[in-house]
């Protein structure tokens, strides 16, 4: 058990290091490989109206003219101990963890991300609960009533669900449910602790939109898994010893099916936490994902870098949590260590 946990923890740290390296490569090395000079690269960090001095200052600031290894070292150092930039004659401190400094808005990226975190977090929680509960229960019922009208309808719907891009369903709900038929108000974020009811009603449409896509996958996966396990011998044994059917289904049929579902759920939640980029853009919710998209439009490279790194961290952390949950859900993991 302890070895298992240590190994997973080690793997998580390694993954983080790799993700950081890849992010660094994308932002510092790939543009150079694509034929950009140091000056051009620096210009992308300065912002819209770069002057000669500003560009030179940026090159010095980010060590863009130094060897790659040194650049990477400074990049890592910034994350752990922060960084100081001299900017227009004054000193700017980007305190640790320094995920970058937007020279366009004169803001540190990390606090901006933290400010937007509640929005993205609310999205992930609400949508996650809906798609997990909805998808798994539809999948279970479909598997039990295989071939029934319910099964055919829900599997048809699920197939449609995986084929619909989330920004299309989002736009449809805005155009019809909100605008044409007036069934919902325009989605908006209200902090949970300010007004829980407004929080839930304001985010309901984005939740359902985002959940629909994932629920479809979960329903298909659960159904396939259930069909397989319900054919196993131990299910027959459980029935033969006179166990109630619902107990057979939930305790013996569903449990092994859930193990892979937990894995995907961890991954999906991590991805959504790293920015439900598309959903936030469609519904104009000011979460992390939209922050990145706006930064793309204004070519604010440090912000994109910060969000990318942050999103990757979330995926890794969620993966780690899943591994821990695994030890709890699946006894074999505990024994084999």
């Amino acid at each position, binding site marked *: 058990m302890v070895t298992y946990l240590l190994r997973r923890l080690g793997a998580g740290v390694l993954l983080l290091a790799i993700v950081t390296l890849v992010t660094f490569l994308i932002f510092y090395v*790939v543009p150079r490989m694509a*034929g950009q000079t140091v000056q051009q690269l620096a210009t992308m960090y300065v912002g819209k109206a770069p002057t000669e001095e500003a560009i030179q200052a940026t090159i010095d600031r980010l060590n863009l003219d130094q060897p790659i290894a040194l650049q990477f070292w400074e990049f890592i150092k910034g994350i752990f101990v922060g960084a100081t930039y001299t900017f227009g004659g004054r000193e700017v401190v980007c305190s640790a963890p320094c995920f970058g400094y937007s020279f366009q808005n004169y803001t540190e990226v990390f606090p901006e991300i933290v400010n937007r975190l509640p929005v993205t977090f609310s999205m992930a929680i609400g949508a996650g609960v809906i798609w997990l509960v909805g998808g798994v229960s539809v999948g279970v019922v479909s598997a039990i009533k295989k071939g029934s009208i319910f099964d055919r309808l829900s599997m048809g719907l699920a197939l449609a669900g995986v*084929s*619909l891009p989330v*920004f299309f369903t989002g*736009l449809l709900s805005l155009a019809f449910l909100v605008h044409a038929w007036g069934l919902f108000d325009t989605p908006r974020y209200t902090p949970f602790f300010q007004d829980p009811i407004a929080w839930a009603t304001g985010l309901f449409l984005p939740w359902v939109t985002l959940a629909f896509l994932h629920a479809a996958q979960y329903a298909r996966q659960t159904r396939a898994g259930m069909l397989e396990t319900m054919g196993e011998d131990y299910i027959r044994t459980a029935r033969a010893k006179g166990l109630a059917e619902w107990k057979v289904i939930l305790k013996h049929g569903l449990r092994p099916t859930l193990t892979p579902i937990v894995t995907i759920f961890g991954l999906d939640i991590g991805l959504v936490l790293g920015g439900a*980029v598309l959903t936030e853009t469609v519904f104009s919710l000011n979460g992390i*994902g939209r922050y990145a998209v706006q930064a793309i439009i204004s070519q604010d490279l440090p912000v994109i*870098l910060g969000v990318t790194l942050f999103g990757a961290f*979330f995926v890794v952390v969620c993966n780690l949590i899943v591994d821990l949950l695994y030890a709890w859900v699946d006894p074999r993991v505990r024994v084999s260590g």
Partner: protein
Amino acid sequence: MSAPSDAPEKQVEDSGAAAGQKTSAAANRSLRQIAWQRFRRDKVAMAGAIVVLLLIAMAVLAPLLTKLLGFPPNEFHQSLMDPLTGGALKDPDDPAAGIDPWGGMSAEHLLGLEPVTGRDMFSRIVYGAQISLLVAFGATVLCVIIGTVLGIVAGYFGGVTDTIISRAMDIFLAFPLLLFAIALAGVIPDGAFGLEGNALRVGLLIFIIGFFNWPYIGRIVRGQTLTLKEREFVEAARSLGAGSGHILFRELLPNLITPILVYSTLLIPTNIIFEASLSFLGVGINPPTPSWGGMLSDSLDFYTTSPHFVIIPGLAIFITVLAFNLFGDGLRDAFDPRSSD
């Protein structure tokens, strides 16, 4: 396409596994014949396949189609539009009559007009299919190349090689793909790699999507290789002194063609959605070249007055993705030795 070295081999195993006692009836048919018979009976999958063929024809014949039924995709028709709201006018001769709720659909403009500019939606959808399918196919080919080579190597050699490649696949699957993709698309300047404009964008999209999605193929190929490498024909080749290269690409690869084809068909719809998402976020194809995702992105400003501008490009994506999914599911079922004849 054919698998000469293993055709009889597979036939025996699969007919045995599939039909149980009915070996004698199935023995005379190869796996591909059985699969084709099953597939032909699957009406839903056949419908998917037909729609896929029609879509490809539509993309290839785009210039002809727009000449016959539409207008050049970037021709403005602003006289038909309401300058205030951007919607299509009910009657261009009488602007007071208001906006057409159907977005100006008529015999000339089959799918209506784009808000503000009045460009013909039909032509833009048809040309959008070109970009969508080109990127999706290109990316899928790249996924298949990377995934097959790495998967077959990992599966065959095992050991440290397998560990490294398998971990790499895990890492790729755990990445926040969309963020990385928009980051990459955002930092590459125009004129990079000697390419400009949309040639660069298409190349970049194919590269990004292919580079991030290959593990799906890689995992399947690795798994199949693991079981195949224990079979006698591999043993025979090895004992005859065949080198690793020969065994990997002459003995194993022909037997992997079927699963690779099936799963790349299922990867195409994922890649179509990926491309549409990137275009939706504004890091895909440059305007004015039409793309479905880009049209949906523009429709964010017009969904109140011109709902057709949301529905039409969205349906185009939906139909395409659904058709590929149905086709791929059908192929998978047809080739599945466990499914009954």
